[in-house]
């Protein structure tokens, strides 16, 4: 977790220093997309290689899926409510101001 934060902060500082060079960021966005594809491919490999996951997915996969959908739906609903109640108005004005 520490590594992640250090790498992220290093990136943010470099990005901040480069902020005037707009052409760089078009390239960065494309690199990010390409690396996401690579990450999902690699993640897929580790799922395919994990015998526990592969051999049990049809038995307990449904249970896991039901719990996931419940948790995700609950999180999205609560977060949406909090955002509407406490943040949305201020955030919208502020972003509009800066544009």
């Amino acid at each position, binding site marked *: 977790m520490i*590594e*992640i934060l250090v*790498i*992220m*902060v*290093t*990136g*943010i500082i*470099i*990005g*901040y220093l*480069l*902020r005037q060079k707009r052409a*760089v960021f078009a390239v*960065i*966005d494309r690199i*990010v*997309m390409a*690396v*996401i*594809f690579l*990450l*999902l*491919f*690699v*993640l*897929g*490999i*580790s*799922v*395919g*290689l994990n015998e*526990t*996951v592969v051999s049990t997915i049809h038995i*307990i*996969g449904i249970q*896991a*899926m*039901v*719990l*996931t959908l*419940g*948790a*995700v739906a*609950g*999180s*999205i*609903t*609560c*977060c*949406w*409510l*909090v*955002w509407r109640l*406490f*943040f949305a108005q201020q*955030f919208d004005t*502020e*972003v509009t101001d*800066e544009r």
Partner: protein
Amino acid sequence: MKGSLTILCCFIVGVVSGLFVDLPAFATKSDLTLWVLYALIFFVGIGIGGDATTFSVLKKSNIRIFLIPAAIIGGSLAGSAIASLLLHDISIRDAMAIGSGLGYYSLSSIYITEMRGEVLGTIALLSNIMREIFTLLAAPLLVAWFGGTAPIASAGATAMDTTLPIITINSGKEFAILALFSGVVLTIAVPILVTFILS
């Protein structure tokens, strides 16, 4: 949507490769995922740092910003508790322990395996992997239907690393710092929540 389908294809090709192809050693070492993730985080950081609107979410939010991860935790616990009513052999408490994993599958599944055995641990692993994969695949739809915070809520603890790029692309860079903040708070909360619920 096109992006999501491409991502799904990459994932499926990966699963099939893992299952049937005799891969070279460097591709099967779990370290590879980690290094690809580091590269991704680095480039995402550059994108965030160069964006003027990035810090606007945090600027005036102050202490209220903790409401976002708090709402995500509350929603996740309530949602998994309700979902467990559909499942006969999973108790509400066990379901809430799985829900409190918030997508942090490695840690939560290890904790749950130790405290409740391998079956529940594996369900926790699958459920939280699904949460991450669901967020990666559905992020564009979530933003379209429920707004910019929806993939952050769906991502849970993974909003600080694996799902951060996809959140940044779909919700906008102005949500990136909020996602990172929420992900960090939730990552810290997971071991505390799982232990608290199961003890």
